[in-house]
């Protein structure tokens, strides 16, 4: 191969290379032009205006509305729990008043047992009967007042509370009956028709036993009520 031929080949190759470079440049320019055309509209003032309108007219109000809605739900739940807490505290107060009446009945029974003089016992007989009748009426009313407040407790706890409450009514009724019997016997004096009269010790122990049973049943209900109060208090703190 002579020199002339080599030069020709080299120039042919250089020519091919130049053409390839030109084509490549054309392709890059074309693709750049295409890309620019997709987003070019964003540069326009109209587009900016529309985007601004969408953000300030739709997105911001939607966000604010959602935020308000969440706050409103939160406030509603908090207010409702606040009202429930108030009602539960009131229920607790009514329940303690029930026990106050049992304590008064017990004290009335103790007074009869502790009065050793028959003359003294007779002298205050009418007052005691009056007090007993008043306590009995109050007890029925107070029981009803408390029973009505059980609705304020969370649904799942109502049935166990009612059950424990019914278990308290039984010894409380027993206490009332014992005090009633004590009053009647102290008014009638000794009755020989009764085959075996309970001794003074047996009567006093019966009274104490009924108080102990009232105390234990009361403790069970009180524990449940307190537990529910704490749970609702705990829940309400989540919404503060």
């Amino acid at each position, binding site marked *: 191969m002579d020199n002339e031929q080599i030069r020709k080949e080299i120039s042919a190759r250089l020519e091919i290379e130049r053409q390839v470079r030109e084509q490549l440049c054309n392709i890059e320019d074309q693709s750049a032009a295409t890309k620019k055309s997709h987003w070019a509209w964003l540069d326009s003032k109209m587009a900016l205006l529309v985007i601004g309108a969408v953000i300030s007219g739709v997105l911001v109000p939607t966000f604010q509305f959602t935020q308000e809605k969440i706050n409103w739900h939160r406030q509603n739940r908090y207010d409702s729990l606040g009202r429930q807490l108030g009602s539960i505290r009131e229920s607790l107060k009514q329940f*303690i008043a029930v*026990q*106050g009446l*049992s*304590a*008064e009945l*017990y*004290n009335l029974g*103790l007074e009869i*047992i502790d009065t050793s003089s028959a003359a003294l016992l007779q002298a205050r007989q009418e007052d005691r009967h009056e007090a007993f009748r008043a306590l009995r009426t109050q007890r029925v009313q107070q029981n009803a007042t408390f029973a009505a407040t059980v609705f304020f407790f969370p649904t799942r706890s109502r049935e166990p509370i009612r059950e424990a409450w019914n*278990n308290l009514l039984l010894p409380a009724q027993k206490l009332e009956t014992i005090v009633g019997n004590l009053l009647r016997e102290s008014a009638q004096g000794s009755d020989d028709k009764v085959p075996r009269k309970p*001794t*003074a*010790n047996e009567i*006093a*122990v019966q009274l*104490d*036993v009924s*108080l*102990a*049973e*009232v*105390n*234990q049943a*009361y*403790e*069970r209900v*009180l524990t449940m009520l307190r537990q529910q109060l704490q749970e609702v208090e705990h829940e309400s703190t989540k919404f503060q």
Partner: protein
Amino acid sequence: MRARNFSDTLNIVAISVMLCAVVRLAVADVGGGMGYPATPWRIEGPESVLDLEKAKALAATYQTLSVPAKLVDEEREGDLLELQRVGLVPTPFREGDIPIHELVGKSSSGETVALSFSQIESFTVISKNEKTITMSVTVWPEISPEELLQKQPTYKQLYADYRRNVVVDLSLKYADGRPQVFTGEWGETILPLDKLPVGVKCGFYEEHPHMVHPLRFWWAIPSVTNDENYPFRLIPKMR
């Protein structure tokens, strides 16, 4: 207010002490009542040993067992669960099953031991295996009705002197294979013996002394209850 002389200072101290005493009395009596001793012998003591025997048998059915509440509910860490009128029953409970009010087992020498709930202060689990549980039982008051009637101890003497420890092996199951469980008056909670972990202490006198049942204290004869140290008193519960 400034004290001008020594007698004024004395007066102020005396008034303060009186006020404190009045407040203490008011707090103690907040539930009403006078705090009579909780006892089956409220007006008069037992006339015979037989009276005491009867009261002791009845007392066994009125005891309250306090156990750590976490044994039945893991969330109640630190609380005590009180099983009132506690008894041992097989589970599942069937018609005709009768609650037992004593711990029946074998002593280390192999003798059969029956410890009535009316004479147990507490017990601690020492060890257990698949079949048995070993307990160290504190027996109190370790006194017979005859001795009680004869010696007429005060509460302080009874508390200090009449106590002993017995190690007893109890079977975890009844003869028919049903597990033994502790259960209370209301039956809503049961505590199987095999759930008692080693080291746990359960007591019969952990209840508040004003929340007790008077029929529990068969031994609280007048010589015991007349002692001002006697803690078990009946006051209407308020708080």
